């Protein structure tokens, strides 16, 4: 068997192993319920569902703030109740992305002329990480982002090495997709554009560099341009995603006012917090070895300057996350450092492909110390798996990323399931309740239902049999509008529960309620 065939066989074995690992862990987290523990995961699934089912289905339900690609990819499958409520409609993308990222790590290392052992170790460091395995079992967006970013970085590396324009276009394509998943992709686009410009300018001349940069930016920035256009068309404000009432900026402003956004304006603290998130997600030793590997890569005389520069794109997530914390666009809590809870600590997983690649490179360059490096890494990973160490799961179980809405959702599932009538609720505040109730989307009147929402928040006693809202909290739009209507007096408080209160219309008013969807073909 020649080298090429054995290499292909090896790659197929890795592919198969990744697929098996992916499926096994999805099933495991489906069984223990953790696959849907993240509040955000339930929201993502609901957004996808609202496109295909509800009082006002349609692409406009993709909304703003959260970038649309992962929700759009759910559309073919989320109409099925099992695919929706098991989370598989979202998880299946994450699982595919997990496998793809593993293969890309392998291919990246192959491009760096790393031997089989280094490539295998690189893939293993990424794949045998419970944080990665958990996130790939959920409808979260991290794995999709990792896959598209790594694909973009890989193709950029190939272009740096071959000067083949097709590779550059492919790189732009993958980065464009990443810009439609999370805003990290926007930073990668900027970073990559600079590298493209520098590389071409150095190798050719200024005009060629200008042309190449325009080609790259046009395709790479297409997603961003479309996003601005989308916001303008749907929300009449191109910057609605950035400055609207549900934007991250608005959320962070509230946190800042509450005095818990300590990282804003503090570069040292932002770096420290992200450093801890990175270390906890990667189990520390792989990150340290990855850093050593990165330094060795940058100093390696056997690699061209182009290759080294292209590899720098792997560090883009590090710069982005620290910058985002510093500028107040992002929030991250590490238990013990910033209070007693976790929040968004999963952002530390963004460098896992980078760490895997650099560590694989280190194994390659370690000479007769390579088995020492492999052994120590395996030693730490063994304990990580034996301890079931995963900060992402801690955040999902007990951190601020989880919401145990079982009581409210349980009430809806028990009482509202077999009774007619709409439920008035703010999806922005209580998407987790909508998801966990198990009821079809068309039972809910929320901000995205257009005329239903306007009518129900003006005269709730005509539309809503139940109202779910946080009493006295104007951040909950339902309370904000309904509490100021006369019709609110028609409701009794049924339950005061964690996260929300349940109001039910008094029986005298049942006969005047609207039970059917009457606003057809809303635009």
């Amino acid at each position, binding site marked *: 068997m020649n080298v090429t065939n054995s290499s292909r066989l090896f790659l197929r074995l890795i592919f198969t192993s990744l697929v098996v690992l992916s499926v096994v862990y999805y099933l495991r987290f489906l069984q223990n319920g953790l696959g849907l523990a993240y509040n955000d995961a339930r929201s993502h699934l609901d957004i996808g569902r609202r496109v295909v089912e509800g009082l006002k289905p349609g692409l406009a339900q993709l909304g703003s703030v959260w970038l649309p690609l992962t929700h759009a990819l759910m559309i073919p499958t989320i109409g099925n109740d099992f695919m929706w409520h098991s989370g598989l409609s979202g998880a299946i993308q994450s699982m595919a992305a997990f496998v793809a990222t593993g293969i890309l790590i392998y291919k990246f290392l192959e491009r760096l002329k790393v031997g089989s052992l280094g490539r295998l170790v690189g893939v293993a460091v990424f794949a045998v990480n419970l944080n990665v395995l958990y996130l790939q079992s959920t409808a979260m967006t991290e794995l999709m982002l990792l896959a598209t970013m790594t694909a973009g970085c890989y193709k950029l590396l190939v272009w740096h090495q071959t000067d083949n324009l097709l590779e550059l276009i492919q790189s732009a394509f993958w980065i464009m997709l990443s810009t439609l998943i999370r805003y990290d992709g926007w930073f990668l686009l900027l970073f990559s554009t600079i590298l493209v410009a520098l590389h071409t300018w150095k190798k050719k001349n200024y005009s060629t560099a200008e042309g190449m940069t325009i080609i790259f930016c046009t395709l790479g920035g297409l997603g961003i341009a479309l996003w601005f256009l989308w916001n303008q068309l749907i929300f009449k404000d191109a910057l609605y995603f950035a400055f609207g009432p549900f934007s991250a900026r608005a959320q962070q402003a509230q946190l800042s006012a509450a005095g818990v956004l300590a990282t804003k304006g503090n570069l040292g603290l932002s770096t420290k917090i992200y450093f801890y998130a990175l270390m906890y997600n990667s189990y520390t030793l792989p990150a340290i070895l990855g850093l050593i590997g990165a330094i060795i890569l940058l100093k390696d005389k056997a690699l061209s300057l182009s290759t080294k520069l292209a590899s720098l794109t792997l560090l883009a997530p590090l710069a982005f996350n620290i910058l985002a914390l510093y500028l107040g666009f992002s929030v991250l809590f590490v238990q013990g450092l910033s209070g007693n809870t976790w929040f968004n600590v999963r952002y530390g997983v963004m460098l896992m492909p980078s760490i895997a690649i650099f560590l694989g490179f280190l194994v390659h360059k370690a000479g007769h110390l390579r088995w020492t490096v492999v052994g*120590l890494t395996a030693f730490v990973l063994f304990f990580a798996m034996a301890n079931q160490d995963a900060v992402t799961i801690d955040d999902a179980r007990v951190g601020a990323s989880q919401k145990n809405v079982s009581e409210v959702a349980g009430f809806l599932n028990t009482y509202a399931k077999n009774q007619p009538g709409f439920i008035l609720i703010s999806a922005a505040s209580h998407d987790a309740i909508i998801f966990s109730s198990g009821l079809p989307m068309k039972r809910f009147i929320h901000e995205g239902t257009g005329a239903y929402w306007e009518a129900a928040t003006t005269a709730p006693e005509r539309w809503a049999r139940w109202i779910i809202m946080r009493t006295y909290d104007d951040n909950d739009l339902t309370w904000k509008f309904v509490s100021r209507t006369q019709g609110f007096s028609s409701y009794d408080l049924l339950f005061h529960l964690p996260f929300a209160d349940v109001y039910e219309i008094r029986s005298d008013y049942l006969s005047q309620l609207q039970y059917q969807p009457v606003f057809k073909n809303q635009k």
Partner: protein
Amino acid sequence: MKGKFLTITVSIIAVIVLAGSVRGLLGNPTASELNTPRWSEGGPFELSVERGRFSVTFSLIEDGSFHYSIPLARFAVPDLGYKDGKYVSLFAPGLSFLIAPGYLLGKLIGSGPLLSYATVSLFAFLNFLLVGVISRKLGASLFTGSLAGLTFLFATPAFAYSVSLYQHHASTLLILTSIYLLTQPPNFKRLALVWFFMAFSFTVDYPNLVMFVPIALFALVKTFNVKKSPIKLLSVLAVVPPLVLLGYFNLKSYGNPFQLAGTISGVRAIDAQGRPGVPQAAQNTQQDLERFVRPEIQKKSAVNFFKSRNLLNGLYIHFISPDRGIIYFAPIVILAIFGASYLFRSHHPLLPLLISVLGINLVLYSLWGDPWGGWGFGSRYLIPSYALSAIFIGVGLSKSRPKPLVSALFFALFVYSVAVNLAGALTSSANPPQVEILALEKISGMQQKYTVGRNFDHLSAGRLKSFAFKAFGSKYFNSWQYYHLILFPIVISGLGLLVGHTAYERH
């Protein structure tokens, strides 16, 4: 010839320094006397780790029992086990066995505990010699090899634990001896010894088994690489005797040959009736007090002591924390990178073994839930790593040109490190971790130090635990004079070896 004379002189100085620093008191105390402040917190048995290990030796020799009498149990608290209504050891028994001959010999001359401590000092001296020998095997000169040994023994926290009753020098001795044996051509005897030491190290301290994994793998590779003589594979059977010994001890102590000491229920206090009680610190708290008075309900697992989540904090504690960090207690160790780098570039076949053992030591005890080692001096769990680092320092000094800058840097760090560690060796190893300081200050009502400053305060107050100082030295010197009396020979020895190496290189 001059070189050999110098190194022999330095070795003699090392012995004298150890003799002048070892902790102890004259006398053969009874179990009740051991509980007095003279012997416990005010004396050589200041910490429960020392008391716990000595208790096994005392119980076996004096009481002929694997279970503790009530006075002995009080002495061992809070590191005391409880099994089937009996008080037992919470430690692996290997060190307790090793100090038994010293205790018996010492008993004859009226100083059982003193010679028990001196046994550990003997192990430390042997480690000093082994570091030098292995360093020379890797390319150090006679002078820098001795400097390596001197660095390990006196310029790292190994010094403080060479004069007290901890397992670290015994563990390090087994590791270094095994490594030394593996530098020789393999034969049945040498391989059997390596396996024997590996199994015995497990009886000294359970985590040693993990640190021996690279040594075991190296030995296996050597075994399989040897031509002919498949009988060499039978050398693995040498693991049996120590394991049988351990199994016998566990059977007699816990009723189960396979029960590890760390999984035994712990007793933190004993009440007036001799039953397990609630420690003072836990009284009037919200804690579940049932587990103190009924230790048998405690659930312990061996694996849960090591957690990947601890790794970041562990590395911080071992390297840069002010209460244990290498940067404060033994910054000279950082110079090991030069020797290791040289060995890497020259593809030395022993390097992977040394780095693996060092790496496993560092990572294992960073995963450990208590990287501080309780109350202690410096990072005691890294003593094997200090030995390996010193080996690299010896090589690095030999292979770097004798530039004045290199030598000056080494010497400056050497003097600082020796000064710090001598303070620890002469005074006390009972430095609290920084995390306990606030609670401690609340109890004591005064500011508490957690750095080496605490040791210098002891020194200024004349609170030395050295037997030689207490028995003789205090009549002629105050504590600071005694400190300098010990410091100067070490520093002069280091300087002499450095000068000798420079002169040797010139010729």
